[in-house]
């Protein structure tokens, strides 16, 4: 049973998107953190994590995502998530992540909002994400 995480990074004008596919456990979380750190070192301060290809996460993986949120807050950057399953979104709300990182139902909406400053401080609200 292979549940290892694959990631893909897309660098765009002023924003980078990290796409995940697979299980976000400790190894998966570390993969994401490595990619995020590289992007930060390259000067990216606006990161979007598209979790469309992830159907299951665990709390160890999410705790590593919290480290990334901490880092983004330190550099006054923006981090948001999009395309979450309803359960992953519910879990992020249970943990309070939505207070510090935007959560969007759709990547295009997330990109628009993040570029336009709509996700200031990360505490974005997206009605599409609640649908």
């Amino acid at each position, binding site marked *: *049973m292979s*549940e290892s995480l694959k990631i893909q990074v897309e660098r765009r004008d002023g924003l980078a998107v990290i796409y995940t596919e697979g*299980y976000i*456990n400790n190894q998966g979380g570390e993969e994401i953190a490595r990619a995020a750190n590289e992007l930060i070192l390259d000067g990216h301060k606006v990161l979007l994590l598209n979790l469309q290809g992830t*159907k*299951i*996460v*665990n*709390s*160890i993986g*999410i*705790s*590593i995502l*919290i*480290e990334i*949120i*901490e880092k983004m*807050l330190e550099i006054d950057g923006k981090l948001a998530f999009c395309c979450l*399953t*309803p*359960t992953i979104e*519910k*879990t992020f709300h*249970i*943990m*309070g*992540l939505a*207070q*510090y990182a935007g959560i969007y139902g759709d990547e295009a909406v997330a990109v628009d909002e993040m570029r336009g400053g709509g996700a200031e401080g990360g505490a974005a609200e997206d009605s599409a994400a609640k649908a």
Partner: protein
Amino acid sequence: MATDAVLREVKLTLPLDANMEIAASKTAMAMAEMMSMGTDRIDEVRMAVVEACINAIEYSRAEDGKVHLTFEVLGADATDPRVLRITVRDSGVGFAPEGVEEPRIEQKLTSENKRGWGLKIIRGLMDDVEIESGAGGTSIVMTKARADDGPGSDAGVAGEG
């Protein structure tokens, strides 16, 4: 209120090894699908099972090196499965559930230790959760009704929960 009977039962014993929680989550999914639970609720059950197993894998230090799971479908009769009850048990060192501080994101963001979310997630995703822990180990019993409302939601769950 009628007491529900155990309509189906599956027992699973797993080694306390990384990623074994996925095997447990797949069993939970199969049981939940068998009782026609909705997709979102199945995902919530899977995630809660993952967290309960990780709790055992990470913290139990059980001498037998195992975590024991029981999946039970409860209902009045076979045509009306109402509740999925899952017990995750280890014979490890145990802990005091009432002594576990509720994690808060504001505090975790600045803390070295960003972990400790498992029980909060399990409680947030399942309908009912009971934790017993002591020198003999830990037992987490959690239930999820087949449906959010309707006959399953007020099912009388048999046993001590």
